[in-house]
């Protein structure tokens, strides 16, 4: 039994899978720890390195949660600006930097949603229209994206973190602030829902 989809996909076909930045190896962990320490002391290069290493993962995660490139860019900017103002917020003893940044991004997205819910669009036709996702020539990916977007938030987050970003259940639990078993059950339930949604859509598989 594969513990995560990432492990399964690695065995299946590694070359077609984009390198997941959120996956943490020991040397990366040590590197992040060193960079975070230097950043706390005001090292500009260290902060720049942190940005270069992690902005893509934060941007992707924000895109998965919002489905909008501009919003994802804004969320990414908010996350790193927040980090600039809270250099000591990340504690290497308590977790890993990618999971920490994903957690901050998740909070930013939630806060933005709360703020947006206070306002109603003047043009009712504009309400609820999801931004078009750029999936040229990948209809099954587009169908899957739409299916993921309609999942309840707690399931969607689990799928994004574990399946799309290849986080372990432990890392996802750190991001979501819940137990590892909760992540596993949410993931299991999310897969059931996705398969049910996609059955009628005949997802094309060109593997």
């Amino acid at each position, binding site marked *: 039994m594969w513990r995560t989809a990432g492990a399964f996909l690695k065995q299946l076909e590694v070359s077609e899978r984009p390198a997941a930045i959120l996956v943490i190896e020991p040397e990366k962990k040590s590197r992040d720890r060193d960079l975070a320490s230097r950043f706390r002391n005001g090292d500009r290069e260290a902060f720049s390195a942190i940005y270069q290493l992690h902005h*893509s993962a934060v941007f992707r995660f924000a895109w998965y949660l919002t489905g909008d490139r501009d919003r994802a860019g804004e969320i990414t900017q908010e996350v790193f600006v927040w980090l600039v103002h809270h250099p000591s917020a990340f504690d290497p003893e308590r977790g890993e930097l990618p999971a920490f940044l994903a957690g901050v991004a998740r909070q930013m997205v939630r806060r933005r949603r709360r703020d947006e819910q206070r306002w109603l669009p003047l043009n009712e036709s504009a309400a609820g229209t999801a931004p078009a996702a750029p999936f040229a020539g990948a209809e099954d990916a587009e169908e899957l994206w739409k299916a993921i977007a309609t999942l309840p938030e707690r399931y969607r987050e689990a799928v994004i973190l574990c399946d799309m970003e290849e986080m372990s259940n432990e890392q996802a639990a750190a991001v979501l602030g819940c137990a590892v078993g909760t992540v596993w059950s949410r993931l299991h339930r999310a897969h059931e829902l996705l398969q049910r949604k996609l059955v009628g859509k005949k997802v094309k598989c060109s593997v």
Partner: protein
Amino acid sequence: MRDPQLEASMRRLAAQVAAMETPQSVEAAVMAEFDRVHRRRPGRALAFCGALAASLLAGLLLLAPAPKHAAPVESQSFYPIPYTAPLEPYERVLVVQEQVPATELIAAGFHLPVAGADGMVRADVMVSQDGRPRAIRPVVFNGPDRSDQ
């Protein structure tokens, strides 16, 4: 285990999303914020160091032994000029420093052990509102010689 079709779709979706790039403006904005924040901090540090240095200096001045004063001038107070009306309490005065002929001071009853080569003495003169000198304080002298009074 999940459906292989679902796995494949996930793989393609991840590949599509991975191709998206963070807007270039984000990095510029983030680094600008870093520079702004860290440019401000040295100013605070300098202000803190300045305040600390000022406090230390003040402490040293307070704890240090009092410096020896210059030799006291024997004449620290003004002496009224004879035969002039005394000043009223509310009257404003002006003090000017002038060169006064030593002979005039001696004639007025002051004892001057030292006088300039030109016979002049520097003195602070208290001038009343009406412009008349009312008191005098020679810079170097021993006070009026009133032994004969």
